[in-house]
């Protein structure tokens, strides 16, 4: 796992929080934030789950985040899904 040092080059990029444990239960992506004791079941994935998670670990520029959600998850309202990721501490 990469632990980030935040600088001006990455401060506006979203990353998977280091406090997340995730599992694929019955093809569902379940994300648990241990710091906030929050659990979120993500919408169905469109692509290889590990690839999507890897992209989140590598970071998504905040300006591209809605498009990332649209491309990777089956959902009608990607903005709302992104909000859920942020409010539950899944992304930082």
């Amino acid at each position: 796992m990469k632990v980030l040092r935040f600088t001006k080059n990455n401060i506006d990029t979203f990353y998977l929080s280091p406090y997340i444990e995730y599992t694929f239960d019955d093809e569902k992506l379940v994300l648990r934030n241990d710091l906030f004791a929050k659990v979120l079941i993500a919408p169905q994935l469109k692509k290889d789950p590990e690839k999507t998670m890897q992209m989140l670990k590598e970071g998504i520029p905040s300006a591209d985040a809605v498009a990332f959600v649209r491309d990777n998850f089956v959902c009608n309202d990607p903005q709302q899904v992104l909000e859920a990721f942020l409010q539950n501490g899944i992304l930082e």
Partner: protein
Amino acid sequence: MEKLTAVRRSFISPFVQEKDFDFTGGYCFEKNGSAFLLNPDVGSSILLDRDHLEEIKNKKISDDLQFKLIQRGFMKVPGSPQCTDEESILPRFFIIDLTQACNFRCTYCFRHLDETPRTISNETLQSIIDFIADYCKKTNQREIHIQPWGGEPLIAWKKILHIHDDLQEKGIKAVLTIESNAGLITPRVAKEAYERDIRIGVSIDGLPEIHNLQRKLANGKDSFEKMRQGMQNLRDAGYGTRHGIITVLTRNTLPYLEEFLEYFAIDLKIDRFKLNIVKDSPVMKDKGLCLSNAEIIDFQKRLLKKLIELNKRGHSIIELNVFDKLQNLLIRNKGNICISRGCLGGKKMIAFDMDGRIFPCDITDYKEEAVGSVNDGEELIPLLEKAHHKTDFFAKKESENCASCPWWFFCKGGCTTAIKYKKGKVEGVDELECLSNRSLYPELIRMFLEEHELVKILTKNKLEIA
């Protein structure tokens, strides 16, 4: 030490940036234009460059940084999630005291070994297994950890196999972990253990001469060769070098620290081990084995230095306390029941004695610490909840330094059993763990700020600072 003092440590007090935008405060360690911030109440942290640290110090935090600080538990705004710092009572690690008997007589053993050692009866063991299975069903746990304990647990090998088989029949996967002196690991035992995926840790106290000095056979003879053969049997059975190693560090072994680490890495091809500093107890025969405060501090530095040197020379070897503490600091590890979030005995772990009594940890020689029995007909979680208000074990552990200690979240006063064994009651803190934390954590943070590439080496690529 010169490098360590060059890391500036301060406490950034809580403040309100705008109405309702609270910075919660935290310890700040700075060096070379980088800063490591640690929230001691919830164990969260963040690494920043100087510019972003200045934003915090000047109380002018930009939106981007504010968001990062919220997600790392350093800032609260209306509607932001609340951090949790309490662990629920839900044991998943079970110690079963199978036997007092032991084929070794180690100089620092803290068990009260009687003249005629007892071994658990089949009936009591069955009651314990049934109790665990019932608890797992009620709490919906399908995988748990069990540590058969002794004496030398392998003396009761058949009983260990029964625990594994019976729980499996009851639909529960029991991951068994055994710490053994390896004297009884025959090729057959090794094969059976390997086939069942039992995790075995072998106790080795360093170089053969020292091992033989500290870990005698019950007949008074040297034990190193017996241990070595047992370890080889494990390797031949399929474990390779993936069995555990536990080493107890005493004043005898300390002078040879570098030598025996070299021996571990090169001769024994060990790639991970756990080094425990000997704990004081009333039954320890030789008090002179305990380390002084200065020796503990010195040891932590020498250990890190030697691990780094060996790795740089191409011998991949890690020490597991260092590994866990690195994870504590960087990702708020929760894997270690003892050193990640304070003592979780009685919350995540319990122990059973040979009469079926239940204890919050392997403190079974102190009967007053029993929280109940498998024969009482009571359920585990209510028993533990009641005990939290009743027994000495759950008394608050604190010294005058704890309130302002950066390592509080991970330590919380240290090992309760160690305090009980040393003082006969739970009061104050586990001084050995306190000193270890106060000397090791600053060294690890110095590493983050000065030589962060070492984190990758000392965690076997699990963590990397980017």
